[in-house]
């Protein structure tokens, strides 16, 4: 197996002349050749996503991990915790250690076998999201032989497997010898993993090219060549899809999605990820603010016309939950369905002393989701809550949100991994990064569940917590957003929706082109 080609070297300006450049340009023909699947990504591909150790707490890096790497245990079609590199695992009775037995005969792209030593190395070098929690809770890793190891914990941690498998990149295995040989940056420039596709070349912000890894243990990938192109503009992505230059276009929204469904040969694929959106009433703990009155908050919730918003913006694909906790999260409590009742909302407002509604100042939101804001604005105005839309540039919005500078209504969202407990910790409970205040009974429940080892008991406490959040109307949930992508005529199995809650195409080895191997 030839080692992957060295990363892009620096071509000095001197060596370049306009005429020569014509020839030098990568001549990827603009009509997609056969045996190749071209995916247009809406975001620029970051090399950090090629290295499991750097996985940030967002879903996007897993788009790359599923292609280039493989994990001990990962979400697969039909099974959120499917055994992959780890054939089997057992938890010790005292829940202080987990024993794993590796699948035999599994190779990395460079032909090296996957061994327990690599698993130990991958866990210890992990420095992505929640790496501190992992470091605190994991006592150590004992390698028994090439295919058996045990991970010891300092204290019982019911969520260990969730973290190790799906919430972080710790469980995704990299070849120790190769990483130490090429170093951290070298590895990012030419990653080697055990996934279904091998890294071929990467032009930052432009294009990633991968090739099928025949030796993949699960099954050899059906498509020979996989190319990810970065096409930032949504309209251009749709045009490229219509022209057949690309096969899959990530993130097509609103009216462009309408057009896509109407174009013959193209199909829209929607996957409900774990990104929930809500309105957060930042001033509810301030007695003078109208939002202090629970009826006003409930009125805002009732004003939202969820169905129409869903139909308009995501063709009805988004999941209308009435909770800020994603439905596919552990310990999820199903609240009553969301209701759109402007009349009752106006009655509640009148009772709360606002017969003619009130001016509620600013409505803060992330500029890239201002389209939701504009629609919600109209709904609120219909019941008399008059707000002014204040969209902030993405980074500035999160900064202000975290620094608790935002007021009145905040259109919040989170696609972070974890379970209902981790989501509550960040947004609901006292001291949470985005909690502007908290309620004692909820804080007490949270503390109680943190110490509870019995899963059933813990689930009951978390359910009660979510019920309290719902009753106090801390939030007015909007939806669990569907991530919509377009699929071209050449694609057989597009891989969308195979893995529950995963917005991108996966597992890559199952993808097929129509009519061709």
């Amino acid at each position, binding site marked *: 197996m030839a080692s992957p080609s060295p990363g*892009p*070297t*620096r*071509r*000095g*300006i001197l060596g*370049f002349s*306009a005429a020569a*450049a*014509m020839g030098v*340009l*990568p*001549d*990827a*023909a*603009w009509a997609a050749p056969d045996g190749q699947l071209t995916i247009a990504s809406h975001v*620029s591909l*970051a*090399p*950090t996503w090629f290295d499991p150790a*750097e996985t*940030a*707490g*967002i879903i996007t890096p897993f788009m790359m991990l599923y292609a280039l790497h493989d994990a001990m245990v990962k979400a697969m079609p039909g099974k959120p915790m499917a055994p992959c590199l780890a054939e089997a695992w057992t938890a010790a009775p005292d829940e202080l250690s987990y024993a794993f037995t590796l699948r035999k005969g599994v190779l990395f792209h460079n032909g090296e076998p996957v061994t327990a030593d690599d698993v130990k190395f991958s866990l210890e070098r992990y420095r992505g*999201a*929640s*790496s*501190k*929690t992992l470091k605190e809770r994991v006592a150590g890793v004992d390698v028994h032989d090439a295919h058996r190891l045990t991970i010891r914990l300092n204290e019982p941690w019911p969520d260990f497997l969730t973290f190790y498998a799906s919430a972080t990149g710790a469980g995704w295995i990299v070849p120790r010898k190769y990483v130490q040989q090429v170093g951290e*940056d070298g590895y*990012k*420039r030419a990653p080697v993993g055990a996934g279904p596709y091998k890294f071929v070349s990467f*032009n*930052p*912000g*432009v*294009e990633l090219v991968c090739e099928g890894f025949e030796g993949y243990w699960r099954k050899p990938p059906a498509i020979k060549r996989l190319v990810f192109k*970065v*096409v*930032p*503009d949504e*309209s*251009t992505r749709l*045009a*490229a899809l*219509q*022209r057949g230059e690309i096969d899959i276009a990530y993130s097509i929204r609103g009216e462009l999605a309408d057009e896509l469904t109407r174009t013959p040969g193209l199909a829209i694929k929607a996957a409900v990820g774990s990104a929930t959106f809500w309105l957060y009433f930042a001033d509810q703990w301030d007695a003078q603010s109208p939002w202090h009155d629970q009826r006003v908050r409930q009125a805002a919730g009732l004003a939202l016309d969820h169905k129409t918003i869903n139909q308009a913006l995501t063709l009805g694909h988004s999941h209308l939950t009435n909770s800020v906790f994603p439905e596919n999260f552990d310990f999820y409590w199903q609240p009553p369905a969301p209701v759109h009742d402007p009349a009752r909302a106006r009655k509640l407002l009148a009772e709360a002393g606002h017969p003619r509604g009130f001016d509620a100042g600013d409505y803060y939101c992330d500029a890239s989701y201002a389209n939701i804001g504009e629609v919600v604005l109209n709904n609120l105005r219909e019941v008399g809550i008059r707000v002014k839309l204040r969209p902030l*540039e*993405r*980074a500035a919005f*999160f*900064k202000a*949100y*975290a620094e608790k500078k935002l007021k009145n209504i905040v259109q919040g969202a*989170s696609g*972070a991994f974890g379970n209902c407990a*981790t989501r509550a*910790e960040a947004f609901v409970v006292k001291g*949470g990064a*985005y909690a502007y205040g908290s309620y004692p009974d909820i804080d007490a429940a949270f503390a109680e569940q943190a110490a509870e080892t019995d899963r059933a008991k813990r689930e009951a406490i978390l359910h009660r917590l979510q019920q309290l959040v719902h009753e106090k109307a801390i939030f007015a949930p909007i939806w669990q957003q569907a991530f919509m992508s377009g699929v071209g005529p050449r694609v057989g199995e597009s891989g969308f929706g195979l893995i529950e809650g995963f917005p991108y195409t996966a597992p890559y080895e199952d993808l097929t082109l129509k009519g061709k191997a």
Partner: protein
Amino acid sequence: MKQYILRRVGYSLLSLFLLSLTIFLFVRVTGDPVALLTEPGASQEDIEAMHRQFGLDQPLWVQYWHFIASFITGDFGQSFYYRTPVLDLYFQRLPNSLILAAVAMALSLVIGIPSGILAAVRVDGFWDSAGKLFALLGLSLPQFWVGLVLILVFSVSLGWLPSSGSGSFLHILMPAFTLGWYFAAAHMRLTRSSMLEVMGSEYVKLARLKGLPEALVIGKHALKNALIPVITLAGINLVVMINVAVIVETVFAWPGIGRLLYEGVTFRDFPVVQAVVVIGGSMIILVNLLIDILYALIDPRIRLES
């Protein structure tokens, strides 16, 4: 001559220093890059760890010192987002930007200069007004709109040209036209006023009195003099085309410096933004120097006096 060059270099360095300081401070004021790289709700220590990793925890002047020291040795540090040396990123995209800028400049001159000459020579003729209107139109329509209409017409409905991305020569046509058309009006206007001024000169009158054909009078005598100021403007615009074609590069997914700069700004990728702006600044200074040298080649009067 030497004293003149020394002064020029001195001013350039001062400009570059001022530019690097401005961009350094500006970027840091826009917010915390780490907040973007991590999901809302990431733990505090994760954020601290990243700060240390990027060296953001040190006091500002230390960071600035590192920036300047490494800048001199040509190392602009690592991109936060891409984790590769910034210069690699820059030089990988530079050829694309250079080609786009070159073709766009050629198109804008092809539109701008002839319409400028026509406007000056055939005042009020149909072609004069048509040329002027066409050039002005380029200034009046936002680039993204032009770009999308071109994609709609030539790519989606006619299917002649690829809608986006780089690769063959066909890819460059639409982006280069969109970018070039915008600058055509400026070139047209300057060519026109410069031609009008030159056409009134004595040596053009003498050229006619010599019985030279009109084409020679305008093409040789008038044009060469009139184009001197246009070269200056074209030089500056060329640098702008290379570094700031953000809109065109976004619409056509053209992997150029403009996009790199825009991503750098939105991701708060300090090293990338600093590098692109400082290199852009030195490019402007370089182009100014080149234009002066070009002046000396074209205009003998300058060669002796400077």
